């Protein structure tokens, strides 16, 4: 049999896959090509622009249409995407990425180092307002060494750069767009991703079809993907049960239980670092006194909190944003409910008769309100009277977020401990919503960035966690599992702990899936 380049490539890819994933392959069998996948989304895909997307449905569309330099596996490791490999200097301040050759944008133009440089220049440009600007690492300059080599120079040592470059917004767009009509990608697409855009209606439907020139000839397996918007959560579930759609990106606990045991449905669940936090304005009385914050943290029965907030689909929190879903995680001693100690701390802080405070929650997602009410009830025992106020999300963002004294936050898991600490808790954090400034904590996080040895990093992050746990800038009572559901005929798709990643280029439909006109 003559072996052409395409056959050779696909067989090597298949071998590589076989070597890496033997156990899952036993169940999965060989992917079948073709078919139209229908995905239910709970929000509109308001923009297609991969560098301006902000919510999960937009991330999904961008992921189908565009590539990044690296991608994130389910265990939060970076793997090659447009970059085939990378190296760094010993100081971790200079990183060189080698690009795949022969990659083209959907319009046929080649994708080169120039496009990568222009893409990152746009992401880092404050005027472009890409939400990814704070998440792609401490990048100072990006330069093209040759058409297939890009060098990143960083302002500080940063071991996580390959992981950070897998961030949702760090996608590669053509240089002509990045330096030209940047906003034009809001409603059209020209990427290097596994799928090409067919049609786009923000509030209803996005259709993409297989990109025949995708750099990996073995993927994608699907001919077409339709992203359908179902603002009503119950409607998503009905459509899944009817076989009208093939997967729901995320379901809530109630719908998850409703789908449990139904024929033809696979439930998807992943432990995750997603959490709701109670933020203390550490510069506003009475929460500027750590004893008051500790006292509140001691009133929380975390097991009950997990049951109440997540219907049991979650894990206990310990007032730090890290849990076992993160790399380099080691637990610090779990804080348990202790009302006597809480009362003693309050007396010490000058509140022998308890205190009263207003706790603010936005109405989206509803779990914020749930946490507020649960905390109100639990804190009563220690003589703390909490008055809960809920408000529309837009009002909350405008009036409370990053400004308030006592309010509820909600965060997705970040790929690394550095990612979440630098987003929320270091003194220079982009969203330092508690205004917590702890030089020792900052130093530990900065030190861990400059280290590649996993054991040392684990040790540093454990010390950082201990500092947070002791000082309680935010109360983090529980983590949520991310939940999803699919039809059994959809294979090789699983929910990602990061919730905002999908990897549908690997997914395929079996012969039982309904045929749909393209």
């Amino acid at each position, binding site marked *: 049999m003559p072996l052409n380049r395409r056959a050779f490539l696909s067989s090597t890819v298949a071998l590589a896959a076989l070597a890496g994933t033997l156990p899952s392959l036993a169940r999965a069998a060989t992917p079948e090509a073709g078919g139209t996948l229908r995905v239910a989304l709970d929000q*509109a895909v*308001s*923009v297609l622009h991969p560098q*301006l997307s*902000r919510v999960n449905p937009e991330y999904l569309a961008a992921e189908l249409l565009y590539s990044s330099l690296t991608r994130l596996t389910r265990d939060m490791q970076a793997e090659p995407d447009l970059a085939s490999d990378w190296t760094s200097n010993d100081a971790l301040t200079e990183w060189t990425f080698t690009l795949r050759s022969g990659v083209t944008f959907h319009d046929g133009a080649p994708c080169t180092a120039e496009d990568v440089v222009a893409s990152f220049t746009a992401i880092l440009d*404050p*005027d*472009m*307002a*890409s*939400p990814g*600007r*704070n998440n792609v690492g401490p990048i100072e300059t990006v330069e093209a060494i040759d058409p297939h080599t890009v060098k990143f120079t960083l302002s500080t040592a940063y071991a996580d750069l390959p992981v950070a470059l897998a961030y949702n917004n760090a996608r590669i767009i053509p240089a002509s767009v990045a330096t030209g009509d940047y*906003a034009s990608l*809001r*409603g059209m697409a020209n990427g290097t991703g596994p799928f090409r855009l067919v049609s786009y*209606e*923000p*509030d*209803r439907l996005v259709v993409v079809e297989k990109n025949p020139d995708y750099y990996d000839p073995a993927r994608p397996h699907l001919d077409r993907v339709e992203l*359908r*918007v*179902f*603002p*009503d959560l*119950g*409607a998503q579930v*009905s*459509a899944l*049960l*009817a076989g*009208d759609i093939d997967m729901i990106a995320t379901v809530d606990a109630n719908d998850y239980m409703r789908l449990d045991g139904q024929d033809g449905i696979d439930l998807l669940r992943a432990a995750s670092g997603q959490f709701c936090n109670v933020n203390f304005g550490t510069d506003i009385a009475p929460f500027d006194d750590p004893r008051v914050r500790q006292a509140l943290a001691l009133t929380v029965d975390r097991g009950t909190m997990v049951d109440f907030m997540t219907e049991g689909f979650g894990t206990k929190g310990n007032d730090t944003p890290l849990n076992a879903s993160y790399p380099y995680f080691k637990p610090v001693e779990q804080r348990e409910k202790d009302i006597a100690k809480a009362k003693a701390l309050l007396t010490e802080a000058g509140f022998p008769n308890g205190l009263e405070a207003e706790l603010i929650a936005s109405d989206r997602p509803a779990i914020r309100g749930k946490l507020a009410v649960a905390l109100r009830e639990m804190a009563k025992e220690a003589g703390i009277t909490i008055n809960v106020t809920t408000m529309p*999300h*837009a*009002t909350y*963002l*405008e*009036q409370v*977020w990053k400004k308030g004294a006592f309010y509820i936050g909600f965060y997705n898991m970040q790929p690394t401990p550095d990612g979440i600490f630098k987003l929320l808790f270091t003194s220079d954090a*982009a*969203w330092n919503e508690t205004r917590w400034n702890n030089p020792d904590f900052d130093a530990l996080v900065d030190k861990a960035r400059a280290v590649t040895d996993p054991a040392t990093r684990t040790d540093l992050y454990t010390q950082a966690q201990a500092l947070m746990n002791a000082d309680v800038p935010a109360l983090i009572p529980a983590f949520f599992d991310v939940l999803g559901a699919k039809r059994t005929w959809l294979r090789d798709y699983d929910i990602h702990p990061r919730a905002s990643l999908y990897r549908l280029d690997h997914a395929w439909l079996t012969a039982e899936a309904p045929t749909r*006109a393209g």
Partner: protein
Amino acid sequence: MSASYLLKRLGLICYTLIIVSLLVFGITQVLPADAAVMMLGENATPEALSALRAQMGLNDPIWMQYLHWIGGVLRGDFGTSLRTGQPVGPTLLSALGTSLQLTVLTLLFMLMLAIPMGIVAAVRRGRIADLAVSLVSYIGVSLPEFVTATIAVLLVADWWQLLPPVGYVPFSEDPAEWLRHLVLPVVVVSFILIAHVSRMVRSELVDVLQTDYIRAARLKGLRPRRVLIRHGLRNALLPTITIVALDVGYLLGGVIVVEEIFSIPGIGRSLMSAVQSRDLPVIQAGVLIMAATYSIANFAADLLYAWLDKRIQYD
């Protein structure tokens, strides 16, 4: 009907719309959300925000912003969505088109059921048929759409799997699927209107059937069916037109819940998501378009009324 009356009515509609535009513009000004922040996100730098504010004219005095906006509207330019960056006008008109399809189908279906039900109830007043119609009406007006919608989806789509539970397929894409997807929402929305209209037809018809001219018609020896339809119904239906016109307004504005539940991309749903994301240009244009549609429906009802009953003189 005089030309001056028509002009007066049209003038009144314009006047109403100006008031609505002032109100909606005023209300969106006091909503606690900064349009520039909504557009650029929480990550935007202060410099980028102030540049965008200047570009969007947000630093101008309010009256100037209003004139700028209303001037655009008069030229057919409703502005750009803060959320999607797409022009608002075409998006909302297409959503309005979808809502109109739902409205027209609902009206047809509802009238086909409600008028016969009202007639039966009036003719068989006090008997079982009348009670049955009353019962259905009471249930209809008492149950909110989200309850009937949930029950309908559960029974028809989930259990019996007769129809698709949710979603919308444009007519141009597949007419059969278009109809199949609209059946459930039409039935759900009709339910409440059937109650409304059949009771109206019944009470009007009962009144009319007791009048002297009906008695005279009967005494003349006209056949009962002819008396009922020619003399009774024609007069009883007149007030119903006004109710139906009000219902058109309700359908265009009030079916937000149904559009949301059944994932129909109509104007109600557009407005709903615009409010959630504080997409001010879409909110402003959406409210204005709905107000205009409502006024026009009422105007059309009055014209129809006059045309059917020549005794009515507008001046």
